[in-house]
C-alpha cells in the first residue's frame, strides 16, 4: 500500500476512539442534568466533580485525536 494512503487511513481509524469519549462525556453531562433536575439545590456543589469527570473522560478522546494529528502532520 502507498505509505501516504496508509497514513491517512490510520489517522481516520485513530479518530474512531473519539466516539467513545463522546459517549462518555454525554453520559456525564446527561446524568448531571438528570440529577440536577431532581435536586437543584445540590447541583452547584457538584459542579467541580462534573468538570473533573468531564476532563478525565475527554482526555482519552483527545489522545486518539492527538494520534491522528501526529499521523497527519507530525510523523
Amino acid at each position, binding site marked *: 500500500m502507498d505509505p501516504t494512503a496508509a497514513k491517512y487511513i490510520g489517522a481516520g481509524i485513530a479518530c474512531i476512539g473519539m466516539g467513545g469519549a463522546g459517549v462518555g462525556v454525554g453520559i456525564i453531562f446527561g446524568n448531571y442534568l438528570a440529577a440536577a433536575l431532581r435536586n437543584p439545590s445540590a447541583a452547584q456543589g457538584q459542579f*467541580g466533580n462534573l*468538570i*473533573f469527570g468531564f476532563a478525565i473522560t475527554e*482526555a482519552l478522546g483527545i489522545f486518539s485525536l492527538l494520534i491522528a494529528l501526529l499521523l497527519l502532520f507530525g510523523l
Partner: protein
Amino acid sequence: MQVDPIHQFAINNLMQLGTVRGHQLHFTNSALVMFIIVGSVSALLIGATAPRAVVPGRLQSIAELSYEFVANTVRSTAGNEGMRFFPFVFTLFMFVLFANLIGLIPYSFTVTSQLIVTATLALLVFFIVVIYGFWRNGLHFLNLFVPKGVPKLILPAIVVIEVLSFLSRPVSHSVRLFANMLAGHITLQVFAGFIILLAGAGVLGWFGAVLPFAMVVMLTALELLVAFLQAYVFAILTCIYLNDAIHPGH
C-alpha cells in the same frame, strides 16, 4: 486555494538576542504574546483594583470575580491548607485563560497550542506536588499509591496501576490543554478555508459561503467557552493534584 491549517502555529523569529554555546537565542512571536499576556493580566489585576472602590466598577468586578472564583475552587478542592497554593493556582489560571482568549483574536498567536508551553506548566505542577508531598509528609506520601481497604491479593496490581496513573498525570494534564486548543483552532481554520473556497466559485458561491461563515461565528462562540473551560479544568486539576500532596491518605 488550499489553506494550510497548521501554518497558524508556526513560530517566527522576531529578533535575535545572541548565541549561547552555538545555540541561537531568538525573541519569537510566542515570547511576544506571552509578554502581552502577562502585561494584560497585570493591567487587569493591578490597574483595575487600584481605585479600591467600595462599589466596584466593571473592570474591578472582573478582577474581584476571578479572584473569588479561583479562591472558592481552591478552598473546595484542596481545603484551607491548600490556600497557601492559591497564588500559584491563580497565576496558572489567569495565564492559561488569557493565553486562550488572546489566541482567539484573528491573526494572533495561541501560546497554549504549543505542547512545550503546556508541558512546562504541567511538569511544574507535577514536580511541586512530588516535592511538596515528600517535604510535608515524608515517606507517608507513598500512601497515595496504597489505597485503603483493598484485598491483599490484588494490592500489588493496584499499586502498579496507581503509580502508572500518577506518572501519566503530567502527560494528560498538558496534552488536554494543548490538543483542545490545537483542534479548536484547526477547526476554525478549516471552516474559514471553506468560505474562501466557496466565495471564489462565483456569485452562487457567495450565497453558499454564508453557511460556513455562520458556522465559523458559532464555532468562535464555542471556542470562547472552551477557552474558559480549559483554563478552569487546568486550574481544578492542579488543585486536585495539590490536594494529593497535602492529604496523601485516600
